[in-house]
């Protein structure tokens, strides 16, 4: 059972658009990822444990785990254009954090702006996907995720929360949709 939990990757998706959140969640789940969706950069940071003050209200199936435990995230996918903290801001904060900087980050945007793309890649984003994101885009993620896994195994670090099971997959889309 723990083998199954280890091979399933956990993706944190960040997007202020409700429709896009629904889409990316469904897309990721179809590709057998474990998914958590949030609607802002600040909520993403809270979920990742960077802001201990506020209690998180992330749309995670394991909402019961309102503990101070750090949740293992294997990949972060974030929209670029978001009010408040942009995807770029979020990317920077993640790369500046000792605990989070090794998590691969992917930026999504509806606009094809080369300078924007370059800026994000220079700041450490692994990929830049044009929206709407396709299944083919997700296929590009595996190498980045496997890289992270291998690194992990080399350091012989046991994931803190590897008991999380694939049972959460059965959670219906209604429950994981964000409040408007």
């Amino acid at each position: 059972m723990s083998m199954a939990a280890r091979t399933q990757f956990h993706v944190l998706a960040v997007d202020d658009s409700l429709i896009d959140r629904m889409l990316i969640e469904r897309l990721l789940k179809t590709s057998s990822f474990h998914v958590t969706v949030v609607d802002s950069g600040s909520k993403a940071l809270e979920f990742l444990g960077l802001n201990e003050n506020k209690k998180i209200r992330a749309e995670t199936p394991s909402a019961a785990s309102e503990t101070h435990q750090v949740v293992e995230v294997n990949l972060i996918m974030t929209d670029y254009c978001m009010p408040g903290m942009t995807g770029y801001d979020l990317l920077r904060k993640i790369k500046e954090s000792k605990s989070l900087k090794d998590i691969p980050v992917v930026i999504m945007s509806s606009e094809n702006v080369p300078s924007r793309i370059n800026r994000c890649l220079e700041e450490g984003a692994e990929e830049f996907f044009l929206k709407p994101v396709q299944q083919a885009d997700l296929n590009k993620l595996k190498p980045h995720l496997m890289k992270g896994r291998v690194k992990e195994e080399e350091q012989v670090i046991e994931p803190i929360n590897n008991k999380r099971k694939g049972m959460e997959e059965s959670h219906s889309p209604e429950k994981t949709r964000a409040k408007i």
Partner: protein
Amino acid sequence: MEVGQMQRQWMDYTKSLFLEGYLDGQFLQLQQLQDDSNPDFVAEVVSLFFEDSERLLNDLTNALDQKCIDFKKADAHIHQLKGSSSSIGAERVKNCCIIFRSLCEEQNIDACIRCLQQVKQEYFLVKNKLETLFGMEQQIVAAGGSIPKMELSF
């Protein structure tokens, strides 16, 4: 009408929506994400699109109605509408939004107002088409049939 006929009618109607440019490949992606465990996925996303769009169109109408138009705000609304229409595959609405955006950049008020009318027209057209499509799907299911899987071969 028997189920087979209804299904053929559904397929013809769907094809026409693609051929006439109302919908593009992204809509097919949505359909592919729907399965037995998520049988209402497309309908859910589309109804969200309807709610979202109508709110944005109202906001845009108000924005352009002001004595002193806040083009930045209007642009933000259009950006959102462009994004959501792109996400569900509403191609004509999306294309209209693209034009609208450049008119906004130029701050061409009259052209913007005319363009907004275009966007509304395209939106209500595709809304009507999609509602018709969903109506057909409901009839098929009610008659005990299943919705065919669309192929990209046309």
